[in-house]
Structures are given as C-alpha cells and as structure tokens.
C-alpha cells in the first residue's frame, strides 16, 4: 500500500539539471502553490508564485542556475537556491 519513498537525499547542485518530480502535482494558489507528491503523499507549500514558475520551468533549462538566470533577478538567487534545495529534500523536484 503506501509506497515506500525512495531513499533520497542527493545534495542540491544548482549546476545540474533538475525537474519537477513526475509524481508531483501542483495546484496554484494566490500565495504560490500546493505541491502534492502521489508517491510519498506529502503536501508541500510553495510560498511564492515565482517559485512555482521556476519549478515548472526547470526541465526546460540545462541547470537550475540557468533557470534562475532566465527567471529571477540575480540578487534573489541565493534564497531561491535554498528553496530549491528544500524541494529536493521533500522530493518535489528531482534530477533530470
């Protein structure tokens, strides 16, 4: 029954390619989005609409850093990298 979640955690490397986990569904909300993982059944909150755009668009970039370069002002990259690292831990995003 409850599927055992695969062993994580790879450290987040912003120079790698990442994408939204295929078992994660997003529901957009004014504050950002709910992310639901159908595998581990965890509900995670993405706390800004811009972060939702980044998560959705990761797969179109050769690296997370490239995605941030394209989508987010440079001075905010640090906080977005930390947010993406947390999303790796919660398996909302995974290596592409």
């Amino acid at each position, binding site marked *: *029954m*409850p*599927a055992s979640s695969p062993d994580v955690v790879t450290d987040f490397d912003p120079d790698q390619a990442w994408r939204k986990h295929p078992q994660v*569904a*997003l*529901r*957009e*909300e*004014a*504050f*950002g989005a*709910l992310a*639901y993982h*159908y595998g581990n*059944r965890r*509900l995670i*909150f993405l*706390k*800004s609409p*811009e*972060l939702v755009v980044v998560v959705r668009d990761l797969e179109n970039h050769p690296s997370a850093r490239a995605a941030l370069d394209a989508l*987010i*002002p440079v001075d*905010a990259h640090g*906080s*977005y990298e930390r*947010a993406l690292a947390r999303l790796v831990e919660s398996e909302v995003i995974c290596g592409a």
Partner: protein
Amino acid sequence: MALESPSLTDRFKLGLEAPICLTWELTYACNLACVHCLSSSGRRDPQELSTSEAKALIDEMAELKIFYVNIGGGEPMIRSDFFEIIDHCVDRGVGVKFSTNGTRLDAEKAERLAKSDYVDVQISLDGADAVTNDAVRGEGSYDAAIQAMENLVAANFGQFKISVVMTRHNIPQLDAFEALADHYGAQLRLTRLRPSGRGADTWDELHPTAGQQRELYDWLITRTNVLTGDSFFHLSAFGDALDGLNLCGAGRVVCLIDPVGDVYACPFVIHDEFLAGNVRDPGAFTSVWRDSDLFRSLREPSSAGACASCGSYDACQGGCMAAKFFTGIPLDGPDPECVYGHGETAMAKVAVELRPGPSVDHSARVPVRLGVSS
C-alpha cells in the same frame, strides 16, 4: 519576490481555490450508534447522492486538484457502490482516506483494499479495551474493529491508521493505544471530542477534564508520529505549538460534503447556520466553495473578541468554532476547553437547554445512551 512571505496561516485565513482537507460523508446509514457521532448517523437519507452524482462530484474534485478526500459517514462501507466510488476516486487521481468502524471489513474486502493503490484506511476505536470502547461505540464494536485490523494485516495492506476520539475515559489509555498501534504496525491518530451531532448530548460527561487536557498536551508534544488532524490547536496555549496549522480552517481550507450533497463549513458543524450550499446547485461544489456568502464571510478577518486581551490568542486563535457554537458560547468567545478555564466561565452564562441543538438528525429511532448496549 520575497520568498519569506507572510505566514501561511495568515494566507490560509483568506481561503484557497479549493479545500486542502475535504471530508465527504457517503451515507447517514450506520450499523453502530456511537454516543458522540458528529453526524447523528443511523438511517440512510433517501436524498443521498446516487452513484452517478458521486462520480460527477469526484470528477469535479479532480478538476479542482483536490489531491485526496477524507471519506466517512455513517459507515461508508455500507453503501453497495462503495468500491465503485473509491475506485473512481483513485482512477481520477483523488486519493482516498476513509474512516470505518471495521464491521464490514472482512478478509475479502481487506484483500481488495490491499490491491487498490492510493487508499488509506482509518479504523475507529475509542477505547484500548472492549469495556471502554463499547461504552461509547456499542457492544461488540471493539471486537469488530480488532478483527478488521487482523484482516488488514493478513492481507498485507501495509500501514493503516487507528483513529481515536479522546474522552475522559480513554485519556488514561494513551500508552495502551500507542502499544496497540505498534502491535499492528499502524499509525495512531487522535482527534478531539466535539459537542456536535449526538456528541451534544454526551460532551459534558465525556470531554476530557482540565487535568487530562494537560496530560494529553504533554503526551502529544513528545510524539512526532501521532496524527491529530490538527484538532488540538486550542491546547497550544499551554506553550509550544503542536504540529499543524493551528487555526480554524472552516470554510478556509476545510469543508464537509454530507451524504445529500449539502456543503458545511467543517465536519463538526452539521447545522443550518453553517450550511453553505449543495453540490446539486447550479455551479456545483466549485461555486459553493468559492462564492457562497457563508464561506466568504468566514474568510473575512475576524476579531479576537473576548480573547483579545489574552496573551495566548496567537497560539490558540480562540479555538474551535464548532465547539463554541454547540456549547452556546459566542463565536468570538473562548473555546469551551480553553486551557485557562475561560470557556467554563462563558458556558456558565448559557443554560444547557439554550444551547443550539443539532438541526439535522439521522439517528435510528431508538434512544442512544452512553454505556447501554443496543
């Protein structure tokens, strides 16, 4: 652009595009007659949603990206189309968590549940022994629940949940419940007794004492693997917040769809005052959730009322709306189980006879009494 935005709790108070925690009661029919039943269940209502209406509702949930639904009743497994309904949920990507008294969960059904992906089962049990449990849930209900758990284990279902409503009589059994859950490889889920449904008649004698509330808080604060459905946020006034959202989610992140399609603000307020609409109305559930006057008003900023001067208001948010309503306390007053005792004072101002009784009752036409087997 800031990632450290206003707290999620503050955002949730304004409401969401769709609920996070949707409870759907499939039927008012029940073969038990628990003395604290939130929905005063017993008899099926002839207006209950048909199979095709139920499936249309599930399709709507899927469109709204409601990722899982909490199914209850009554006893949901009594519906002859129970598996058709939960299979449709799973097919549409709406996960199922359903609560059952276990009486219909035989070996064959356990096998079937074990095969269906994405279904969680909660077995209701309100005592760690038959005497304590059956006084509330009826004679034989303990043995039936245990048999259901044995069936799930034999079918290799995996981890199920044991769901306990905390009362004056079972708070001393917290460790025993934990041991029982460990024995079955189950997860323990504890929820709060509400003075709702038939609970209105039994709450005074069943709700935990002030000392037991402290005992429960101290026990919960050291447990990370015990689920609570965020139901004890009024106890966060004791000190550190318990895990969870710590707010009343009624009409904001939570709602209830009852067996006839009526939409209430939460599972604990099946009462005309908190009826927002019906899924059979034009616009269906989506319109009720987004546009009903009731839900819009619940999303307005609320005043701390009588609790404004209390230093713990941020922790407990004034407690549970349903518990206040059914004990006759104003909705901006203290929770009846306020840890500082303000609820006792507020309740003393309202004669018990003047408390709003349930406006919907599907109880079987025999008296339901505490500790009397039917």
